[in-house]
């Protein structure tokens, strides 16, 4: 797909994570979500990029899954609920490093969907205000009556 940091193989892991953390199907998330993840990683310092890439490998490894859930299958091949089980082991762990991993994955997924305007429709987010100042809930929004007495 022409990534700068991710490999094509990472696509499946990113989508599987997105599905589990965000509650969207891989089809709903689509290419744009994966591309945004790649761009997010591209904005990081190199040492962090490599850490996060390693984290993706670790989370997908059958060994990791076996150690934490007893199932010797890679993350992408697990059903969503089993993936969540593994993720929650990280989230609730007493080992701080595992929690760090879960925080990194949540940030990656949360950013990669919600920084894109494609996600806004479902949120009923009225969107950017430029050129639409009167329709969006700015101070100029008639409904809120904020305009009264306002000095621009």
């Amino acid at each position, binding site marked *: 797909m022409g990534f700068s940091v991710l490999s094509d193989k990472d696509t499946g892991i990113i989508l599987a994570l997105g599905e589990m953390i965000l509650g969207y199907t891989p089809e709903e998330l689509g290419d744009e979500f994966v591309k945004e993840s790649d761009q997010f990683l591209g904005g990081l310092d190199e040492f962090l990029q490599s*850490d996060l890439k390693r984290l993706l490998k670790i989370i997908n490894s059958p060994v990791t899954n076996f150690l934490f859930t007893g199932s010797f299958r890679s993350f992408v091949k697990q059903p969503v609920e089993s993936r969540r089980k593994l993720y929650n082991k990280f989230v609730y762990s007493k080992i701080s490093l595992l929690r*760090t991993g879960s925080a990194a994955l949540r940030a990656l997924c949360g950013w990669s969907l919600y*920084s894109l305007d494609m996600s806004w429709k479902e949120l009923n987010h009225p969107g950017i205000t430029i050129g639409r100042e009167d329709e969006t809930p700015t101070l100029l929004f008639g409904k809120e009556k904020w305009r009264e007495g306002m000095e621009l």
Partner: protein
Amino acid sequence: MIIQPKDLSEERELATEVLIIGSGAGGSMAAYTLAAQGIKVIVLEEGPYVDKSDFNQKENELVRKMYRRGGALATDDMSIRILQGRVFGGSTTINWMNCFRTPDDVLEEWERDYGLNHYLPENMQSHFERIEKRMSVHPVPDEHHNPQNRIILDAAAIMGIDGNVCNNNSIGCIGCGKCGLGCSYDAKQDMRLTYLTDAQNDGATIYTSMKAEKIVRRSEDEQIISAVVQDGSGRTFQFKTQRTIVAASAIMTPLLLQSSGLTKGGLVGKYLHIHPVAGTVGVYDREIHPTYGIPMSASSHELKNITENYGVWQEVPDLEVFLAGVNMPGTGPQRREYMKQSNNMGVILTLNRDGASKNSSGRVKWIRGFNRQSGHFGLRKYPSVRYRIDPLDKKHLLIGIRQAIEMHFAAGATMVLPMHAMMNEIRTGDDIDKFMQLPMGPNQLNVFSAHPTGTARMATSSSKGVVDETMQMFHYPGIYIMDGSTLPTAPGVNPMISILGAVSRALELGNAGM
């Protein structure tokens, strides 16, 4: 004059009287004050040049372009995300406009604990007044509070606690709620539109997308700064200067000083303070539209003095959708459902004045080898930011979070999401008590920051600080530090005006040796 990479000439060695590294709050004040006296000033800014035509309100584009690490700067263990600008105008270009003067009791503490008897309230007043005038600082009119800020004002009135209208630096703000993405309306009076404009009018030259990599101090009157153009070309420039002012922020200043070997005294990078922030989300049965309206127009300081003058205060954010998306609790369909309700949510931020026990474990440092907090292993040096919330500060933060939850319910919330990995919803008083019993370690309670300070603090003795009262480095005459890193303690209010005021005062006292 602004010089962007496309405007650079072939001349790779340039000379100036004063070279300023960083165009944020501190650097801009220094550029303005010195250029106004006819002194030749060059400013180097690592981030790109931006003006209102760039501010298209697209979160993914703009955060990547204007925030350090594309918005992902954090402590090593990722438990505290630190928002910072890396752009023309520094963090002021993307900040949320709240303008507080440094409280008198904090200035008095600086005198008592750090000997700063030239920074007392009576010394600072004229500086604050001038700054507020130039930046059009004014109280937000009553009819301009958005529903999110009204939560604070309504709850404060109902609960009989402190609730204030805040000042901000704007002219003709229409409340689009996108301050964090740069103001598309040129309403926010950030550094670009105020002190950097004045400095340019007085002859200062500003290089954007130009990162200072190293300072070589040949003598008090001669330093050479090497800088790399941030356009992927790898072009390097050398600037010869009589005085260097480092104003790269409390995170980047110590890193630059350390890579330049300017660390004598052992305090550079220590005592990081951040004003840790915890958010609580109220879910309302009315539309709040938290992503619109003027941010931070109301605050409550009822709990500012829990232990002496240390405690917390409450504000509401400029909520970009991505911030909600990254921080929303829960996983899977439940998380998605929460996000769908985000128009009916309002966020209260509890900000903690950290340092109550007069210490900070926070520090910024280049390290190599294994990092047990991040799991990184590297033979090459990499920047490390460590910060653990001190137990007394955590106690204050939790008292503040409890108050924020109560404020939401007082203002009519049907449910509160406390931003904790182990508990998604609070509906009753019992839930609040249960929440308070949860472990509150790193990546359990969700914490962020936008206010790093203190990593090269000012004091009258080199045993306590890195710079003296004129902000000159004790061990390296000719080199000055003028940004948030010099604040000796967390200011206990949003820090922009404190930084501008302190730099203005330091220049009045020493004029950077010019």
